[in-house]
């Protein structure tokens, strides 16, 4: 391998020298110097892995989405567009999906076939692969059984009917499944390469892709260099020649690099620069379909009383929080499902359901608190807001702490724990109030609504409501999208009226972006940036 690299470099060097030593040859300079089609993007962290079956995080997904393509791909307006699949059809009962693939190629010339998808999806589900995101495919019949070692791979309902036709059978109707195939876990991998070199994902010289860019080099903790993949089926739409993904953890350092002209795009903006940069050059605020909220431990006094929970939720000033503390134009949340999630009419879920399930009302809050037995906060037990060490979360917690004190006379502490200890405490309900955030796995309200079913793995509040559970079950079984969405809307109403969680704001995604960078898609979930249509002006 090293020999190949050296040889390639040597050949390039010879060409370069030959070009330089051309002696007296004038190079045709174009009338206008064109900007090099290169974007330098800071991912802000080292990816843990670049194997689609093992990747779980947003940074990993981002790099993968620029190198691979799934059955579908999200377009600039969150619409689902054909990817490797040029068209698809769903059976009337919503269970059988048939994908017709186009004639696409891998970067090593191999054709992309339906069998590649079967191989890759079975690889994701294989218990030996031990993929953390295997459950993304549990929609398929036979998938969960195979993954838990109780079924055979042949029984998983994904089949290649022919070279270019893929047939998938689901356990139950799931409209979010189509969008999921754009998700990195469901990307295809090249079976020939995977069988020959199982370690192909570790070094970039064996790495074969089917997406807009292919990798050249992975310098750990420094950068990943990608170049345009000429064999990509839609290479005509790709204008960038080169994409350098920097892996600089410290966002302040990244900011300095941006100012020094070494970076063009960074995934995060230092908070203390926001006030200065916002609205001007350099910062673009993209939507983010995630919600920032506090959980109440409803198994502990005083949070077993919904009046206390509602009182606390109504007595903070969200507008001041997003304006002065978080400063990225976040949207105060008076409901749970964030903006950016479509419903059955194609419009935003929030547009139809509204964002005003409750109001900030100090008088009402005080009344509720008194009714619950703590007039003016007297006798309120010592409780604490649990958060992890992230500076932003600590600031919000301290601001909320002060608001409750000033507005209700309720004194709470702030407990900061190391990330894993905090996760563990949250899991074991070792808290009274706990900071939380949730982003969607797919663009459908269910990814938020099904959080709070009784004993849900991610419920973490101790809250249980039978009516809510029934509505969620109804939505999951419904084939009619209208019935489904209506059930979820009802469920959300119950959630807010009982307030086991207190929504604070809907996230936004501020990025540091140079003006010359155009055409980057920054989706509201799953990945940080899609450069397929990006270019430099």
């Amino acid at each position, binding site marked *: 391998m090293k020999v190949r690299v050296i040889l390639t470099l040597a050949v390039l060097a010879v060409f370069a020298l030959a070009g330089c030593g051309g002696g007296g040859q004038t190079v045709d300079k174009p009338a206008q110097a064109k900007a090099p089609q290169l974007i330098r993007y800071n991912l802000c962290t080292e990816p843990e892995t670049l194997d689609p079956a093992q990747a779980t995080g947003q940074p990993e997904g981002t790099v993968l989405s620029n190198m691979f393509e799934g059955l579908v791909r999200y377009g600039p307006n969150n619409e689902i567009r054909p990817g490797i699949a040029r068209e698809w059809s769903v059976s009337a009962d919503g269970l059988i999906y048939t994908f017709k693939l186009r004639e696409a190629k891998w970067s090593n010339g191999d054709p992309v076939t339906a069998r590649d998808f079967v191989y890759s999806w079975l690889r994701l589900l294989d218990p030996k692969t031990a993929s953390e995101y295997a459950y993304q495919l549990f929609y398929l019949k036979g998938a969960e059984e195979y993954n838990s070692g109780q079924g055979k791979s042949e029984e998983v309902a994904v089949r290649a009917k022919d070279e270019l036709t893929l047939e998938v059978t689901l356990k139950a109707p799931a409209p979010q499944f189509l969008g999921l195939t754009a998700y990195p876990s469901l990307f295809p991998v090249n079976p020939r390469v995977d069988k020959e070199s199982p370690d192909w994902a570790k070094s970039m010289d064996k790495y074969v892709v089917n997406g807009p860019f292919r990798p050249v080099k992975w310098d750990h903790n420094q950068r990943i260099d990608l170049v345009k993949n000429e064999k990509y089926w839609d290479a005509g739409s790709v204008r960038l020649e080169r994409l350098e993904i920097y892996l600089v953890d410290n966002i302040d350092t990244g900011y300095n690099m941006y100012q020094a002209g070494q970076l063009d795009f960074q995934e995060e903006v230092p908070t*203390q620069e926001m006030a200065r940069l916002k609205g001007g050059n350099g910062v673009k605020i993209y939507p983010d379909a995630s919600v920032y909220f506090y959980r109440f431990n409803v198994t502990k006094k005083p949070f077993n009383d919904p009046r206390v929970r509602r009182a606390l939720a109504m007595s903070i000033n969200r507008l001041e929080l997003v304006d002065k503390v978080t400063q990225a134009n976040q949207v105060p949340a008076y409901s749970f499902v964030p903006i950016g999630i479509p419903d059955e009419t194609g419009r935003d879920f929030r547009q139809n359901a509204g964002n005003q399930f409750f109001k900030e009302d100090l008088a009402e809050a005080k009344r509720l608190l008194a009714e619950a037995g703590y007039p003016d906060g007297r006798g309120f037990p010592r409780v604490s807001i649990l958060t992890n060490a992230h500076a932003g979360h600590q*600031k919000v917690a301290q601001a909320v702490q002060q608001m409750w004190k000033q507005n209700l006379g309720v004194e709470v502490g702030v407990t900061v724990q*190391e990330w894993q200890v905090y996760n563990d405490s949250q899991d074991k309900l070792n808290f009274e109030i706990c900071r939380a955030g949730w982003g969607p796995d797919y663009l459908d309200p269910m990814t938020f609504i099904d959080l709070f079913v009784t004993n849900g793995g991610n419920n973490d509040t101790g809250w249980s409501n039978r009516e809510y559970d029934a509505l969620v079950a109804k939505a999951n079984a419904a084939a009619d999208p209208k019935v489904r969405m209506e059930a979820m809307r009802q469920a959300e109403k119950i959630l807010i009226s009982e307030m086991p969680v207190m929504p604070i704001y809907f996230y936004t995604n501020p990025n540091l972006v140079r003006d010359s960078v155009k055409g980057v898609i920054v989706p509201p979930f799953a990945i940080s940036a899609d450069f397929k249509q990006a270019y430099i002006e």
Partner: protein
Amino acid sequence: MDYKRLKGNRRVALGLAIITALLLLAVLGPGLSGQTYHQQDLGLTNQPPGAGHWFGTDSLGRDLFTRTCYGARISLAIGLVTSAICLVLGVLYGGVSGYAGGRVDEVMMRLVEVISSIPFLLYVILLMVVMGPGLKAVFIALGAVYWLTMARMVRGQVLALKEREYVIAARAVGAGPWHILSRHLIPNAGGPILVTMTLIIPEAIFTEAWLSFLGLGVSAPMASWGVLASEGLEGLRNYPWQLFFPALLISLTMLAFNLVGEGIKEALEN
């Protein structure tokens, strides 16, 4: 020890003066400003120093002067407690190890290496989980790490000094090991001991700041100077006073301890 020399020493006087001023600041400062370290005014964030806020305000509109005073309490406490633990433990352990020599020294030094190698962060997390948040765990964690530096330094010194003529003479006269250690060896090792102390104090303060970032230090809204300096660093480009004051005070504290240390050393040498 020559007390007269100590009293007349200008350096010591200057050092003690600074320390006293800092202690006064820590104790009386909040009273002077009339504000608290946690009161936020979201309308007055990131204000430069002025009439209402002598050191300006931070990103949540809290008065930096008061926060710095409280920070003094925490940082000075950390510095003093940690160095006290290190002094006692380190000098004792290092002295015994160096004097005993041979196999005892071998075993004791290997033990030091073992403790040095175990990942610091790991057992700080354990300590925090077991003892709960707060300064107590931080003191123990820091003390448990820095005494090792002192022990090694003292051991090295004692190893060399115990071959000196005056030690051999003392032994010949029949002086016991404790007498030799306390009267001859430790005082003559005073120089490196004091210098090491002046190293440990700031390192302890900065390590606490670093631990705070991981959620393992003092709980918000309480903040040590290290934490204030770090928050100030975020705003360096736009609000430089946020870094200036904590950094200045840390430097002054170190200078003061240094001066006092020098003075004590000079007095010890006579």
